């Protein structure tokens, strides 16, 4: 059990480090109307989609801490707080409201990213970071929308990546949600369960014939 948790934690850390590398290198250059994608928030949201609320909260907190290391004018821990809450909220919604699908996952990722941006701004404003709201509401809405679009475009591969990272050594998703679901569609029944169902049907038929 501890080995599986360590394996999952290691893979998640690797994915988050890759995300931080991408954010600080070519992420800054991929700008649409001066807005760059937020890969760390995307990974937090996708952890919630793939692994449920607890995975979303933990991965979001780690992703936010990595983000905070490269920020200048906001308090350390603010991005961690925002990403943790966004990841948890998306994971909770996935566990209680809907089953992710290839069509729904990009929309959820976009909405989750927008929510993460809003939490970051509101929490920042509450701790005295008035510069976050100084440019005005329309600028903030534009940030949230463009970041959401970036997340929607990258949602499927990011969710697959987080899904791989959250799988334990036995291949079972290390998820805290019920029931576990694949973000790329509902799971297909295994061959073993299909064989046992055929055996039971043939036994029932044999009893009927007797």
């Amino acid at each position: 059990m501890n080995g599986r948790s360590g394996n999952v934690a290691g893979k998640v850390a690797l994915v988050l480090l890759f995300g931080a590398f991408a954010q600080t290198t070519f992420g800054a250059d991929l700008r649409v109307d001066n807005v760059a994608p937020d890969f760390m928030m995307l990974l937090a949201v996708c952890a919630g989609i793939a692994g449920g609320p607890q995975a979303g909260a933990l991965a979001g907190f780690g992703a936010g801490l990595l983000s905070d290391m490269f920020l200048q004018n906001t308090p350390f821990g603010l991005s961690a707080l925002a990403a943790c809450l966004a990841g948890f909220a998306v994971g909770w919604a996935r566990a209680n409201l809907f089953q992710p699908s290839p069509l729904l996952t990009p929309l959820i990722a976009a909405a989750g990213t927008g929510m993460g941006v809003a939490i970051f701004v509101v929490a920042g404003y509450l701790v005295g970071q008035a510069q976050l709201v100084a440019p005005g509401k329309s600028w903030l809405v534009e940030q949230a929308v463009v970041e959401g679009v970036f997340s929607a475009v990258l949602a499927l591969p990011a969710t697959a990546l987080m899904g791989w990272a959250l799988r334990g050594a036995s291949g079972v998703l290390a998820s805290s949600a019920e029931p576990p679901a694949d973000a790329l569609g509902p799971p297909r029944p295994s061959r073993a369960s299909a064989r046992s169902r055929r055996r039971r049907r043939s036994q029932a038929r044999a009893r009927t014939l007797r």
Partner: protein
Amino acid sequence: MAASRRQNNRFVLVVLVLLGVTLVTLSTRGSDQGIFNKVRAYARQVADPFQSAVHSALEPVGNFLYGAFNYGSLERENQLLRQELVAAQTAQVQAASEQAQAQQVLAQAHLDYLGAVPTVAAQVVGLGSANFEQTIEVNRGSDNGLAVGEPVVAAGGLVGSVSSVSAHLSTVTLLDDPSFTVGVEVVSRSSTPAGKASGKGKTGRAKGPSSVSSGAAAVANGGSVVSSGGAVVVGAATGQGAGNALSVQGVDVGANVKRGDELVTSGLQLEHFPGGIPVGTVTSVYAPPGALQLSISMQPFVDLGDLQVVQVLLWSAQSG
């Protein structure tokens, strides 16, 4: 089973939120030399080689795509720049003779030559990756004499100020960052002869030798310091986010400010910038009904999205 799992989820969330709030509180109350800033400086040093390598590899691709999508506007901009170059070369000749005259006047008054502020050239090696901060990384640090708070200029205009320094790298907060504020003074394009100030009240300027030579150029280009009832028109310019015009506050309704006026750093006492550095041009002036102050927007002279090399002024408010 499901209930215990939900309880576990909530417990983890509460713990993480409390940890996050604790980190934010400690970071807000900490000093500039605190552990969080040291962690950030170390992270930047680790990331810098990767940033530089990827930036160098992707820059030609980015330039190609930008040129392909913006060919028409690039051509128009090229023609405009050629015209401005000719005008600037003419003004440069005039400014050179006026600087020589200013030197003579100052020498007679036993003052140091304005513009003797030492500078360090630095190359931009990375852009800030966050959307709520407008920053760049430059390849000079404390080993080159840089310190937090020093002004940064490029192509004759203000770019921002140094906000954090490590041994070989520094982060510069740009003019359009919402947390950036600079005191500015309006320089109007009036009929007053070049080199003469029309206002009487040039009071409050911080320590004589603190202005740079570009201040002399701003006046020598046919501008004059605007006076309104004997007082210089000053305000505070604040960034409004990437790509947005800066907002100038603190200018009373009735001040003689109009579209096209140029703004330079005021260099008033307690300012973090020497006086006379060109900042930008007024793009709109609006007097809201019933307001006591004008609503002014300005565009910086420097193209903050296309910085390659900057100059860091080794200047501080204490030393002048």
